[in-house]
């Protein structure tokens, strides 16, 4: 573990924590523009989080400690995930601690805790949200893992920095396995981040919500942490996508500090384009009925498996 590596590690986590709400603000702004509405401020998510931290927390009478500890655990898992995913540099000492499979495990940990917290109060919406979240997760999680497996097969490693280093040094071309994986990953990201067509982040229409139904009972600092963690999740997913499919501009281990500094604007540029694309997809598609979700996610899963088969048989 070099001091430079440690520094880049800390810096990357800090950048993720700071930039994540901005990404959400940007996507919301793009969505508003695309649907011809006047857009909220780019900084609105920060203000929301700050406001929530100042408020008094109200917790249901029959809440157990599981309910109160969950926001912290979800936030902790997402922070660790942000430390693992190479967004700015690949010289990440913490990435040794958790590879691609463990990353999916971390997301699952957050999902299970938030679903348990949703069931804790014992309201109708909480349990319906938990049920639907696990329902979406049981297909999305394997699909994500298959996407990461495809990249692992190509690079001969499940360590995310090694994957990025390998993929970044390949010739620029369309690889069939990665093309399948890319489509699958896009679909999974939509589902996992509670986006249209699976869920709607803006909805409070009771019958259709998934993520919002689970966090209905949260308020103040707990809600702030959940919101921040959701933003971090979106940020992490975006960075995984960028690292796998556009791995250029991320500082390599042998690079000097200049590359690290240069990686920042490149990341912001890529995230801006990615966020716009997300808003575009959301604007152009309609929300699916919950029982159409397995078809959508099943397609993603099959595409990812196809990508893995192609990678296994054709070697990339």
């Amino acid at each position, binding site marked *: 573990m070099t001091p430079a590596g440690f520094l880049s590690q800390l810096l990357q986590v800090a950048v993720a924590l700071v930039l994540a709400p901005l990404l959400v603000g940007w996507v919301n702004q793009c969505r508003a523009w695309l649907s011809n509405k006047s857009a909220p401020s780019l900084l609105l998510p920060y203000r929301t989080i700050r406001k929530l931290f100042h408020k008094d927390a109200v917790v249901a009478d029959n809440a157990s400690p599981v309910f109160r500890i969950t926001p912290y655990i979800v936030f*902790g898992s997402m922070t660790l995930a942000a430390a693992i995913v190479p967004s700015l540099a690949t010289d990440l000492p913490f990435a040794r601690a*958790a590879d691609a499979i463990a990353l999916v495990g971390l997301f699952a940990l957050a999902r299970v805790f938030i*679903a348990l917290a949703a069931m804790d*109060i014992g309201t109708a919406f909480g349990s319906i949200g938990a049920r639907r979240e696990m329902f979406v997760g049981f297909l999305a999680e394997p699909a994500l893992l298959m996407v990461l*497996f495809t990249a*692992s097969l190509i690079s001969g490693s*499940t*360590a995310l920095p090694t994957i990025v280093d390998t993929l970044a040094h390949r010739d620029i071309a369309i690889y069939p396995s990665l093309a399948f994986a890319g489509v699958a990953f896009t679909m999974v990201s939509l589902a996992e981040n509670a986006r249209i067509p699976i869920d709607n982040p803006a909805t409070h229409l009771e019958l259709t919500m998934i993520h919002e139904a689970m966090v209905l009972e949260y308020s103040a600092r707990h809600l702030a942490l959940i919101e921040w963690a959701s933003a971090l999740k979106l940020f992490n997913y975006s960075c995984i996508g960028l690292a796998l499919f556009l791995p250029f501009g991320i500082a390599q281990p042998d690079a000097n500090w200049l590359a690290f500094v240069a990686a920042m604007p490149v990341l912001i540029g890529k995230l801006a384009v990615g966020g716009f694309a997300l808003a575009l997809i959301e604007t152009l598609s309609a929300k699916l009925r919950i029982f159409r979700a397995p078809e959508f996610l099943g397609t993603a899963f099959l595409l990812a498996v196809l990508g893995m088969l192609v990678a296994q048989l054709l070697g990339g």
Partner: protein
Amino acid sequence: MGPGLRWDDADPVISALAWIISVIVAWLAVGVLGLVRPRSIRYVGRVLFPIGAVVGIALAALGLASITSVAQTTVLPLGLPGLPFHLRLDPLSAFFLLLLGAAAAGISVFSAGYFRASEGTAPGLMCLQYHVFLAAMALVIVADDAYVFMVAWETMALASFFLVTTDHRIPEIRRAGFIYLLIAHIGALAILLCFGVLQGGLGDYTFGSMRSVSLSGAWGSIAFLLALFGFGAKAGLLPLHIWLPEAHPAAPSPVSALMSGVMLKTAIYGLLRVTFDLLNAQLWWWGVVALVLGLLTALFGVIFATVQTDMKRLLAYSSIENIGIIVVGIGLTILFKSYDKTLLAAITLTATLYHALNHAFFKSLLFLATGSVLHATKERSLGKLGGLIHRMPWVAWLALVGTLAMAGLPPLNGFVSEWLLLQAFLFTPSLPQSFVNMLVPLAAAALVLAVALAAYVMVKFYGVVFLGRPRESNLAYAHDAGRFERIALIWFALGCIVLGVFPTNVIALLDSVDAMLVGSTVGRIGSSWWLLAPLNADRSSYSPVIVLAVIVGVVLLTIQIVHRQYHGRLRKGPAWDCGFPAQTPRMQDTAEGFGQPIRQVFEQFFRVERILPSPFDASPRYKVTVDDHLWHWLYLPVARATEAVARAVGRIQQGRISVYLIYSFITLLALLFFVR
């Protein structure tokens, strides 16, 4: 050491195997002592079961100590004339003895506080059955000839049958016991036939002789398939899983824990012993058979677990899933070994054994937790539980550890073995058969699907039982577990954490088993006590210590910062629930409701029968039953055919002496005709 004992290696001190024999004898003695005062709960519970637990710890320590030592053998002058008992202790048996001892110790402590006076079997008698069961399992693991193996195997089956039917006054429990005994015997027959093939015409049934016999490919395959069938019946492989969801809910909870956590593993032990130790060559397609069967079992088990409404049935189906995962590991190991990829075979074997150990811990923990819930509420049905975390915090928090471990989440133990298995899938090099090359990624996909569904099952289990609001009013009087029960639950929860956080040390222990069975060990280039790197650290690494430390660190830091920077004010109020005023506990998801999406998606897997009310019903009723197709497609036709044959045969029984004399006469004539 008695005069009849003969040790092969001249050991100055008493060898580990002698100690293990004394452990078996000690368990039997504890069991027999139960008959002294069979009705005294104090005597049986507070004295005998704790002694049994201490013996279990001794066995675990012996297994741990002898896992790296060379094989020891001995011959006991018991059994038939000319057929003495051969026993042997090698790394494979030492590992399974460790598993048995560690799990039995915890379960015995729990039993000390669990058994009450009941309508069924007297506690003292149950103590005998319980300890005979334990001793038989230990004897299965150290058996070194087919004769003592079968004696121990059948003793194990019978002892557990009596334990399952403890509450024998209830018809369903008698039925469950019957199905269990039936399948156990079908399996035992297959194992017996398997040993018959393995002795290769020499007539020598010691395992030592079986090792030296070289069977032809066809006979070897027959032996393997018989072993897969026979041990699969005990382990719960498809389609012989049918007894698990019946027997586990019927048995008292410590017995369910023992059967699911340990007895299923003796079947895994037997399969490993026959496949890797006694059969000297393996064919690649055996691996494919085991792999496919394991995957089907895992998916089947987990899909059925999602729709269960009885908490012990849910756990039983989840045991089927975990056995499926273990058999997938065995299949991959055979596959890799047959292609001489010994390093990969070592990784998959390590993952297999690790998962067996993990499953023993978290499944015992969860079954024991259901026992405490059952005691506190007299209720097994998920639809009548809920909110128990407030009434039973000890059980709830310890069960949470087991829940997370079983859902395969880092940094607990279930994740480590699944991680290792997936690594093996990922680094499968191109194998000579293109069919196998296609199969491996597909198998990985199916396995990942099963693992993801396991998380669904566990959220359902934990959320419905412990979280939410109590669904029945009498749950307000539920009491937490007693002292003995708590100690047992803590033991297993600690095991889940330690096995999850220090995987490198566990894997180092398994090296000698790997070396014995597949001739290689897991490489640990760049591994250290905190970092697990099975191939080398550049390819893949995982450090549960750091994952745990970072998450705990961030949680504590965030709490500190939020409370310092802002405030820690907290108010209690009624639940918000979008402002709906009248909320009752019945508005929460039931167990059926929580599983409904999966039931709908996998509708073809289930035999669903619905009774729907019509608009004109005076008292409308809705009922849905979810059943297993295999029961109707396989078991009932076989049962009907058996009955038909029995009726046909029954027709020749006239009940008159003269008719029977004619039968004898005809038989005699026929025999004379043949012998002539």
